[in-house]
């Protein structure tokens, strides 16, 4: 199966590993180990090393100044997807997106890119804004929560590695998510 992933981040040598980078790296490695062809698309023109046979494509985003994180998340996704057809070959069977930023890219790719049209779109959620911030009192958090609710509802499948996140997805966003206790199992479920 050919799988394409979208994420804001991918590990880079010499920099501290974030939890999102760890998730993207480990899940893509698991999918590769299961025999799938895996490509990960990230913003930025850095070319990360080829880990475990996973192809990582950095797409340059020309806009450098953003008033806030929401503007960055929405705006950078458009820039990545606009130019990805010149860097990505062939058609993909499945799209895997990480967090809301990756999901926006994934949805745009599914709608506008010939390589992704017809693919199923699955989203992996580390945590919701209700766990990270305070959407009731903070404008930015409220906006991110609203975007999360909308974008996760567009996905064919939503997966989380924590039960609390699954509960939040259900109770706050009305999104039916699947709890998967380990990255290995997540890989098998997504590729299954």
């Amino acid at each position, binding site marked *: 199966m050919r799988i394409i992933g979208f994420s804001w981040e991918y590990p880079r040598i010499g920099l501290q590993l974030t939890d999102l980078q760890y998730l993207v790296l480990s899940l893509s490695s698991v999918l590769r180990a299961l025999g799938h062809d895996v490509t990960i698309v990230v913003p930025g023109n850095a070319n990360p090393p080829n880990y475990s046979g996973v192809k990582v494509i950095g797409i340059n985003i020309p806009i450098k100044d953003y008033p806030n994180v*929401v*503007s960055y998340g929405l705006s950078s996704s458009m820039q990545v*997807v*606009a130019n990805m057809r010149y860097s990505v070959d062939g058609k993909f069977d499945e799209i895997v997106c990480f967090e809301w930023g990756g999901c926006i890219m994934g*949805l*745009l790719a599914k709608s506008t890119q010939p390589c992704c049209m017809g693919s199923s779109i699955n989203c992996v959620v580390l945590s919701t804004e209700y766990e990270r911030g305070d959407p009731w009192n903070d404008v930015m958090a409220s906006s991110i929560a*609203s*975007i999360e609710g909308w974008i996760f509802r567009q996905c064919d499948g939503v997966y989380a590695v924590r039960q609390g996140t699954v509960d939040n997805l259900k109770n706050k966003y009305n999104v039916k998510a699947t709890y998967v206790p380990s990255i290995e199992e997540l890989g098998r479920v997504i590729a299954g």
Partner: protein
Amino acid sequence: MRVLHLSWEYPPHIVGGLGRHVYHITHELVKLGVSVDVATIGYEDSHMSDDGVSVHLVDAFKVRVPDFSSWVHSFNIFMATELSHIGDVDLVHVHDWLTAPAGIVLKHRFKVPLIATIHATEYGRRGGLHSLESRHIHEWEWLLAYEAWKVIVCSRLMVDEVKSVLGVPSDKIIMIPNGVDKSLLNFKPKYERSNYALPWELLIVFYGRLVYEKGPDSVIRAFAKLLARLGNVKLVIIGDGPMREYLVNLVNQLGLGSKVYFTGRVSDDELYSVIYHSNLVILPSRYEPFGISSLEAMALGKPLIATNRGGPTDFVKHMDNGILANPDNPDEIAYYAEMVLKDEGLAKRLGERAKETVTKGYTWDIIARKTYEVYKATLEERVRVNW
């Protein structure tokens, strides 16, 4: 030929001149045999036909956003995903940075040339880039110009501005002015003159957004000087904006009292009726990429004192079809106003020449034909390019 226009404004949703521009140009293009789609914002995803123009309304309020730029990017995402499936588009035509993200995505989606009309730049509007949001908008304007096959601007001022501010090469820029609706040339007023001035009063009109760039304060200061020399004058200020309170206080400070009438926002019919009844129109903008308001006064055959900066200098010839004055010099404005108001012959000649100018080169059918030529040339170039 099928062209997809992307515009955040389209009637009835109108904020400035952009919506009117898109409305008129698309309707005239349909008359030339172009198949036209317009994608714009709405309150729900829907589709309608507007006199042959296929209008795609995209719900722009699906998510909560913290600020304007985030909102713009959110509706661009909805627009790109909704419009991606319409197919068989030959050109994508974007109006300003507000729909640039969707336009760029759709350009690469369909692999068709992107035409960008840049109506104004952030740098020009703000007199520089003074905030992070301004820099963000400026960068998107740059990216739009970079991705565009051709960049259309409306005046010589804008040609210079996109060259110097956005670094657009000369061979990519095409100047096509804005236009006015032909029906204005034969407009019949629907509101009485007596609503605005007494029979013996000479009526002076300013209209537009009440913001510093449009120079309403200069009109009031010039009017105060004029009133000291001519007693029988009346100033009507049409429009609304953040400067209104300041202007009302200024009128009181200058002791102009009942001689100045603020109407607030009015309908198009009322606006054109007041202009029609007026003896003089004064529009001294400090920044004016084109000046469609000046052109409207000219279409109605009125003597006009326009700004000597920016767009109006392209079509107003001083003392021939109008008057050009320094917007920051109320003495100069008052001097010319007195000259026109005291000389009926001069006023009549300026008005007639102004109407002639509009008839010959500034109606939407003429503008649409020029735009159609740009489309044709672009498509011919596209065939020769390996992309």
